């Protein structure tokens, strides 16, 4: 039992600008379920991709059952008996279950045709081992998420996997399906298969894992048997850094309620979320990937359909059906995906700034754009927000991430938005620009605007917010006042 199945020694992996893994050491015993936990971006998936040959480590060694191995690609990993089951399944949807099983190495009959009969027998026999019923001829597209997961697991078994890595396997499963998955994991364990289990959900880890490793900021912080640990301890290790005090102080008066959401629902994404936003306030939203924060914000901005509940602006009930109406109600949204939905990279700095409210620039009734006014507006915002660009006619493509983000902010300022939704505004931009954005946020609230601030980085969320709402899988799990902020407190709510 205590035999070491896998050891990774001093694994380092850097991506341009980021050290994703720093001297990570990691040991897994044979036949155990080993959970890896950590915040978003802690390096869990990167570590697993190194193990699976998707990425090559810059330095470090990997040992399987005591022997050093080099894993150059996924095929090599498979040969060595390592199978990775991704968050999103890796099956080809248009092919049958059996075809997916034998992808790339279809068995042939004597005359060189595909041996369908053999394929079906093999698949049926593996599923009967697992006590699970799926027709080998079924096309993958018709299967449920749980069935697909099971096909992946069965396929891993058919390839004699000794180590199966599951990257958040339960994220799209129902409770019953999760139970089913866990009983299969237990069966596999008994047969001596080693399972590495990545999850955000504490509950599951305590149910299924034997050992837990905690990763943070690309480093392996701690590995310990699960017995004797508490959820609080794990969370503390996960966040474990002191909260930065480097967030600029601000003076703002928090005033009356400007936006109130009552039992807001969006089909299959958001369930009965209540919150209120005050004038001059930064309201933080915490949660892990898939918590539904962006989806909630989109719903308020008219980009997602409200399937239940009510939204009030300044005490009046409103119905916002699209983004055009949201802007008319003075709402603006800085989106998470800057390059995809934040701005048009081919368009000029100028046209990106004015696009959300062209009517403001017009003579008469939207008949003529006043080009002089357009230029003045663009110049003014470039100066005010210190956007570094050689000219307002430059295409946004040539600017740095931070400057692009400032263009997006300028767009919403020009649109006269009073309620600003900032979804991960500092993602992918450098430290200096981050600070500028914090300062701009402070400036905005001190002028009486209100900000909904979504961020996956707890330090900035705690540093900038007046209140924080924590979400988990579309539900609001709690609301914390500034004096109640703690990484542990937030993480505990986010994983529950």
């Amino acid at each position, binding site marked *: 039992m205590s035999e070491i199945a896998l050891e990774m020694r001093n694994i380092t992996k850097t991506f341009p600008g980021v050290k994703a893994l720093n001297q990570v050491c990691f040991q897994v015993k044979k036949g155990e379920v080993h959970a890896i936990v950590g915040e978003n971006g802690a390096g869990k998936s990167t570590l697993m991709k190194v193990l699976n040959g998707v990425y090559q480590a810059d330095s470090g060694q990997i040992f399987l059952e005591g022997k050093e191995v080099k894993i150059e690609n996924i095929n090599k990993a498979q040969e060595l008996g390592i199978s990775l089951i991704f968050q999103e399944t890796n099956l080809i949807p248009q092919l049958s279950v059996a075809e997916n099983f034998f992808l790339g190495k279809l068995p042939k009959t004597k005359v060189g045709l595909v041996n369908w009969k053999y394929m079906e027998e093999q698949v049926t026999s593996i599923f009967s081992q697992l006590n699970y019923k799926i027709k080998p001829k079924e096309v993958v597209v018709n299967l449920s998420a749980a069935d697909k997961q099971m096909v992946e697991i069965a396929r891993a078994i058919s390839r004699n996997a000794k180590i199966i890595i599951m990257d958040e396997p339960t994220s799209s499963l129902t409770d019953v399906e999760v139970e089913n998955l866990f009983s299969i994991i237990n069966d596999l364990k008994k047969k001596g298969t080693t399972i590495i289990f990545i999850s955000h959900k504490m509950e599951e880890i305590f149910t299924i894992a034997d050992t837990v490793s905690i990763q943070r900021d690309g480093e392996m912080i701690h590995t310990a048997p699960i017995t004797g640990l508490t959820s609080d301890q794990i969370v503390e290790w996960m966040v474990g850094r002191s909260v930065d005090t480097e967030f600029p102080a601000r003076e703002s008066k928090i005033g009356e309620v400007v936006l109130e959401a009552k039992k807001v629902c969006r089909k299959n994404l958001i369930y009965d979320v209540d919150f209120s936003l005050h004038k001059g306030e930064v309201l933080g939203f915490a949660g892990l990937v898939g918590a539904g924060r962006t989806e909630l914000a989109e719903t308020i*901005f008219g*980009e997602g359909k409200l399937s239940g509940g009510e939204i009030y602006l300044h005490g009046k009930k409103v119905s916002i059906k*699209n*983004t*055009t109406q*949201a*802007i008319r109600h003075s709402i603006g*949204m800085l*989106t998470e995906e800057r390059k*995809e*939905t*934040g*701005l*048009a*990279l*081919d*368009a000029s700095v100028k*046209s990106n700034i004015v*696009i*959300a*409210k*062209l*009517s403001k*620039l*017009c003579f008469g009734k*939207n*008949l*003529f*754009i006043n080009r002089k006014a357009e230029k003045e507006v663009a110049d003014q915002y470039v100066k005010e927000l210190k956007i570094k660009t*050689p*000219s307002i006619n*430059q*295409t946004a493509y*040539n600017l740095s991430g931070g400057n692009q983000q400032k263009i997006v902010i300028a*767009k919403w300022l020009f*649109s006269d938005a009073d309620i600003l939704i900032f979804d991960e505004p500092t993602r992918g931009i450098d430290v200096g620009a981050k600070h500028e954005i914090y300062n701009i946020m402070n400036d905005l609230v001190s002028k009486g605007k209100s900000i909904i601030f979504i961020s996956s980085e707890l330090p900035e969320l705690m540093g900038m917010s007046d209140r924080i709402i924590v979400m988990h899988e579309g539900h609001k799990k709690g609301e914390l006042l500034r004096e109640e902020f703690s990484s542990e407190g937030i993480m505990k709510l986010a994983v529950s």
Partner: protein
Amino acid sequence: MTEKGKKLDIVQVLLNYGLIIALCIIIVIVSISTENFLTVRNIINILRQVAPTGIMALGVVAVIVAGHMDLSISSTVTMSGVVCVSYVKYLQADVKGICLALLTGAGIGLLNGAIIANITSKKGRKGESFIITYGMQAAIAAAALLYTNGIYMNLQEKSLHSFFGKGYVPIIIFVLTTVILEYVMKCTPFGQSIYYIGSNEAAARMSGINVKRNTMIIFTISGFFAAVAGVVLTSRVGAASSTSGNGLELDAIAAVVVGGTALSGGKGGVMKTVLGVIVMGVLSNALRLLNIDTYPQMMIRGVIIILAVLLDVFATQFKAKGGAKA
């Protein structure tokens, strides 16, 4: 530095004004080798000839700037033509016929737009407009055949309708179309939104632009102007048949692209398209005056279209490089 700078400038000028330079070269060569080219009569003749295709091309500019495609305009020309002429010929109802023809065109465009707006409104699947409007082209072509029973409708009598094809009138309509669309695309918030949609549809939607509505409007414009072209064409030729528009859609779209409007969207415009239309028109006329046979003529036209697109691609690349240095 100055030496190099000058060289750079020359290349830039060549690339930026390549099409105009090419046009001048064609004009010079043809005027030297034939007598009838640079005459007022011939020039007016050229403009009269390009007017219907030109009007179609201008109508489809907004669609292409938004990153979409409209192949149905040829059938719209046919359909509006036969609708109009049938009223003129059999009922002597010119006004009614013309109005109905324009409404038919706008209606076909609106139908295109409604379908395309609804399928592309989420997570843009822009390529679909190519095939949807191709389907519409086939369906409307068949509808025109059913409507006319395949009969060729000749117009003898003088009528209000015949006015639209006379003398300078097609040219005036072409110029008016240019002015209207140049205004719409360059001066109005609507036009600016269309360019933005062409650059990044998702970002346009998240900036509060009503992408669905704008998509419907641009296809309606495209259909409407195809119908205008249909009325002008039938009037100029003095007849309508159920195949009169066939193939014109690609001539129009080629003119748009030759002028420098990118099929990927976000770039180009009305004045560039006018230039593209004129280049194509002058080229056909020149080839005919030079007595070049039909088949080589077609080949030369094809090569010119390809060269024009290449020129535009290089010019854009060159500008992007220069921009990065600036």
